[in-house]
């Protein structure tokens, strides 16, 4: 089972690689005259990570006048189609890192490359699922999902049709007319997921999206996410403080140290087969071994984090 899963994944990867190479060949033909430069650029583009953070440092100016360094020299590559979970103690700057990848917030220093191109301004290739409620409260579920298409110029009727289809995919076919306050927390997250995915972003940024949900709903939402993701693999940056959730969902788990000046201190590949069921995968031996291993590294940082934030 595990072997076949790994194989499947490998197959997918090489396919993606092939597609990428084809793309670069096209580019090379287009700019034959540029010669060596084009070739070098093409080489760079082959296998260019969906998100590449290089030496990213993020500092905030404090109201007192000082400088608070949240993240120090972070180095993180997320390949196309790869699901990466970022785990760290509270207040370690995980969200900040995500905001930088989204282009909502410029890093103080370092480079952010999206598919090999330096990010300037908002990351147009990314969809962002926020931790807190981000739906428009004055729009119905259907309007909330359709809005991302409408802003891009899709005619309203077509946008609504596609939004309805997406609502059905997240299991809310009959809830389109409801306003967010009439939906449960889990349902709101489903709408949020549809709202982001309908635009078909190449990169999915998720900031503890299932944090406020109860355990059962988290599990269901996790499985829904994996279903949707496996149908159309996007690069995912999934921030969470829940190590179990991180391992169950992702291909790679990245650990951050406690802030200030949080660093990335560990990077584990998750050897679990796909497709996965969140509940079942947690019974796997490999899951437990990996969990123990990562927890060893994480524990001291979590304690440090608690000591610094006073448990908050």
């Amino acid at each position: 089972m595990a072997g076949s899963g790994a194989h499947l994944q490998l197959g997918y990867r090489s396919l993606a690689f092939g597609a990428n190479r084809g793309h670069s060949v096209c580019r090379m033909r287009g700019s034959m005259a540029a010669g060596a430069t084009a070739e070098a650029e093409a080489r760079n583009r082959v296998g260019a990570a969906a998100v590449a953070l290089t030496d990213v440092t993020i500092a905030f100016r404090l109201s007192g006048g000082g400088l608070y360094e949240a993240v120090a020299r972070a180095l993180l590559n997320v390949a196309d189609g790869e699901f990466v979970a970022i785990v760290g103690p509270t207040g370690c700057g995980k969200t900040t890192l995500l905001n930088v990848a989204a282009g909502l917030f410029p890093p103080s220093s370092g480079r952010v490359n999206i598919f090999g191109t330096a990010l300037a301004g908002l990351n147009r290739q990314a969809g962002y699922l926020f931790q807190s409620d981000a739906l428009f409260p004055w729009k119905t579920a259907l309007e909330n999902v359709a809005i991302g298409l409408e802003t891009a110029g899709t005619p309203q009727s077509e946008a609504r049709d596609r939004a309805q289809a997406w609502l059905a995919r997240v299991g809310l076919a009959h809830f389109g007319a409801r306003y967010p306050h009439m939906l449960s927390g889990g349902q709101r997250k489903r709408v949020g997921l549809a709202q982001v995915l309908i635009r078909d972003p190449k990169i999915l940024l998720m900031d503890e999206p299932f944090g406020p949900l109860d355990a059962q709903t988290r599990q269901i939402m996790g499985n829904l996410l994996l279903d949707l993701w496996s149908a159309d693999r996007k690069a995912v940056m999934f921030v969470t403080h829940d190590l179990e959730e991180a391992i169950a969902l992702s291909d790679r788990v990245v650990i951050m140290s406690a802030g200030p000046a949080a660093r990335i201190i560990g990077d584990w590949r998750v050897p679990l087969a796909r497709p996965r069921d969140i509940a079942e995968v947690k019974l796997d031996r490999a899951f437990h071994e990996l969990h123990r291993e990562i927890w060893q590294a994480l524990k001291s940082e979590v304690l440090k984090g608690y000591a610094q934030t006073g448990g908050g």
Partner: protein
Amino acid sequence: MPWRVTLFMLQLLVAIASLLIWHILTTVPIFGATILPPFFFSTPLDVALRVVKWFAEGTIWKHLWITLVEAMLAFVLGSVAGVLIGFWFAQQPRTAAVFDPYVKMINALPRIVLAPIFTLWFGLGIWSKVALGVTLVFFIVFFNVYQGVKEVSPTVLANARMLGMNDRQLMRHVYWPSALSWMFSSLHTSVGFAVVGAVVGEYLGSAAGLGYLILQAEGIFDVAGVFAGMFVLAAFVIIIDGLVTRVEKRLLVWRPIAAETRT
């Protein structure tokens, strides 16, 4: 359902008891003296007869209409100005900062003192009352819209930007609905103040309207007329308030109702 019936009965009881006490104190001598002389307090019956007479003769309609027109104009003009300027200030923090002390100053001013100047400027017709109402409505709407634009959730805003909205779309899909929701939530207050502006304006100098009616009655010590005017005004305000509640329910369907608990 039974509670609603009981509630209505109890509410009715309060009205009947109050009227009864009023009636007894003004008409029945207790220990040889009426406690409330009818000359100063009138009697419920006289007041009721006066109200019936006004409506039977049809003279009241003209005054009601004038007051309604003044209140409506004050509400519409004050709201439009409040929305526009509130929006503008919220988008331009520097402009807002420059005007801030003056806005505070004018808002701190009791608006009644402006009535004489408005009468001088706009005459005794409806426009001096409209102007007074506008100064009351404007600030309520202005502060609410300003707040509404300022207090858009940063997450919702970030989400809107990530969903690809440009500035114009942000305005239309985020700032505008947020500002309007704040404005609508103050609808009761602003409509109420529009009526207050109209009536107070009439009271201070006019040729028609409910305030004028009350002032006229007062001028000839016609206490029944004063009370009758007050009752008509109260009924008028309750009807308008009921309409506002209906409009509000339509416009704010997306808002959670505080008493309603959903998970």
